[in-house]
């Protein structure tokens, strides 16, 4: 009799070349995605006179520094983009350069191009690589030294994380999305709550989610401390991938689908940790502080540090100070200065459709930027008339890239300004020095745009299908 195994164990053993006595595995990497930030790693490679071991498995994309609005490009930004181009050419890598129809945020284009497939091991020098786990792939972010190692050897040394399963029961309410679900569990378990674990998301809510929703959920795994998120592939996964540019075709496709059918945790596999959530209690959720764990339902009030103790009290006080919020204020009365829709968390077509549903026929009270997750998403949104809805509402419709999620390309929130944002990090200074970020779903961002303050989106969606 074989021992029941988790999806994590199956994926891990399929990639294990060898295991050292100390338990560290040497793993084979099926896809390596690089971006402008990988310049440190390419420099390390050059120092040692090494070449890229498997250029056919290495793909580059311009995203973090990609200009998303017209105008002059600062020299240091141009240099970052050119350096990636030079490295890609030198090592013979496929590059999704600016103006390539496939360009976009690395975690959006991987799935979109069919580069991300179930059963693969995917690495990228970016923490949100956990996103790709939505396909049942072993996907995790790595640092520059590890990127250099993968470039040189197409392998990575790694200790297997513990297996954790988050099962979400019930069904999400109207206006409640994968983003709310993620912010909810992170606020319950903490920003380091899943540290050292790979999370497999399971249960009826996950099964009912679209690929886009699953990607959002896995994307945010890292904000709860997990380097990996996983969803077992099913028909939704297969339907999404069929006919994608780099996905297998013909007989190879059939072989792939047959392999993917094996990719789920065995019925009685045991997990190191099990968490069950009831989706009935999850409302549209927003963050009020400077960590993704600082999240509450929109119906709540800004928390009061006086009612807390020890280090938590100091942390909350400092966060509220930075955010310029007064304890006890109802969250839906917090006025915002601007909004942002985009990022690898919520810059996909479904996210834009949902935001447009809220904005259709309405005007935004505050300025805002919409940056689609990829050039393809942009094109599709224009074909579907979504872009028109955003611009009619008064929002700016920009090109694809990381944009205001991290501000590297110059799209920043000014000091002291408050931004309702569909991104993933409300860290101090993340969207710009002194910027105040509230994380929420794209629907909630659209609602904040319409009213000029944090707002429960549910009434705004009534009667709209």
């Amino acid at each position, binding site marked *: 009799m074989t021992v029941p195994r988790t999806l994590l164990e199956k994926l891990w053993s399929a990639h294990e070349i060898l295991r050292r006595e100390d338990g560290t595995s*040497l793993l*084979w990497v099926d896809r390596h995605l690089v971006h402008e930030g990988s310049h440190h790693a390419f420099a390390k490679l050059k120092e040692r006179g090494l070449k890229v071991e498997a250029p056919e498995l290495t793909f580059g994309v311009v995203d973090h520094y990609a200009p998303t609005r017209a105008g002059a490009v600062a020299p240091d930004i141009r240099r970052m983009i050119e350096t990636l181009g030079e490295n890609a050419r030198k090592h013979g890598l496929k590059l999704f350069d600016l103006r390539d129809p496939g360009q976009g945020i690395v975690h959006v284009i991987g799935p979109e191009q069919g580069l991300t*497939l179930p059963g693969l091991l995917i690495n990228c020098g970016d*923490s949100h690589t956990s996103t790709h786990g939505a396909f049942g792939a072993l996907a995790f972010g790595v640092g520059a*030294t590890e990127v250099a190692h993968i470039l040189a050897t197409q392998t990575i040394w790694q200790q297997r994380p513990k297996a954790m399963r988050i099962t979400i029961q019930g069904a999400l309410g109207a206006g409640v999305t994968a983003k709310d679900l993620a912010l909810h569990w992170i606020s319950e378990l903490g920003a380091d709550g899943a*540290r050292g674990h790979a999370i497999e998301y399971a249960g009826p809510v996950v099964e009912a989610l679209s690929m886009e929703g699953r990607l959002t959920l896995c994307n945010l795994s890292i904000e709860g401390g997990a380097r990996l998120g996983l969803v077992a592939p099913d028909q939704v996964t297969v339907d999404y991938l069929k006919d*994608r540019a780099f996905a297998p075709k013909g007989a190879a496709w059939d072989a792939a689908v047959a392999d993917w059918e094996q990719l789920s945790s065995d019925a009685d596999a045991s997990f190191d940790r099990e968490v069950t959530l009831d989706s009935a209690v999850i409302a549209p959720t927003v963050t009020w502080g400077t960590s993704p764990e600082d999240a509450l339902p929109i119906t709540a009030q800004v928390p009061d540090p006086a009612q807390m103790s020890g280090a938590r009290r100091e942390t909350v006080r400092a966060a509220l100070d930075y955010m310029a919020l007064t304890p006890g204020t109802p969250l839906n009365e917090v006025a915002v200065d601007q909004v942002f829709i985009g990022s690898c968390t919520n810059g996909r077509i479904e996210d834009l459709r949902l935001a447009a549903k809220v904005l259709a026929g309405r005007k935004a009270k505050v300025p805002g930027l919409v940056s689609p997750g990829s050039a393809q998403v942009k094109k599709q949104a224009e074909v579907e008339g979504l872009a028109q809805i955003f611009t009619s509402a008064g929002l700016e419709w920009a090109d694809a890239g990381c944009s205001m999620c991290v501000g590297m390309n110059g799209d920043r929130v000014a000091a002291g300004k408050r931004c309702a944002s569909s991104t993933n990090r409300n860290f101090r200074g993340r969207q710009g020095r002194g910027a105040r970020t509230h994380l929420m779903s794209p629907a909630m961002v659209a609602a904040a745009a319409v009213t000029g303050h944090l707002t429960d989106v549910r009434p705004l969606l009534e009667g709209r299908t």
Partner: protein
Amino acid sequence: MKGWTTLQGRAVALAQSNVDTDQLIPARFMSAPRSEGYGKFLLHDARQDDPDHILNRFQTADVLVTRRNFGSGSSREAAVYALVDFGIRAVFAPSYGDIFASNAVNNGLLPARISEDEIEALIAKIDDEDVSAQIDLSSGKAVIAGIELSLELDPVWRQKLVNGWDDIDLTTQHRDEINAYRAARAKTHPWVVPTSKDGAAP
């Protein structure tokens, strides 16, 4: 990179939780080449906003004591470069971002994990003073501000820190096993390698 076994130096306390990598080095500095030295970017905005910041009062430090979830967030190794270039060789905290911890070890920076209680005791004792710290990786012991601590050290991490090892050297010794795996995977999973470099039109 040079390895180290013992360290003697100054410890300072940063009494904050969730010090993420965006705080450790704001994104706008990350296009700088490493040769410039990243020490000046360490906690840049916090140091500029607060003249009394602990790293302004003590221009050098070897050991940083801090609260939970240090180095969470982005995988940017630049956060580690900023700490290392500033002179810090060890951080003590109850928990770390996983990617940060691996990056740290790859750059000779010890991410020592000790309990919340020990951290609070250290923070209370270090307070506004800078105090001396000794660390011995071989015995797994440290003394900070007179408080004795034992380190739960992953054996691989200890080896890497002590020897200043580079994984690439280690890995190339396994070239035959890697090649065998690669060939076998191409046979059993022929669909893994994309057939076209440009992809078919979608």
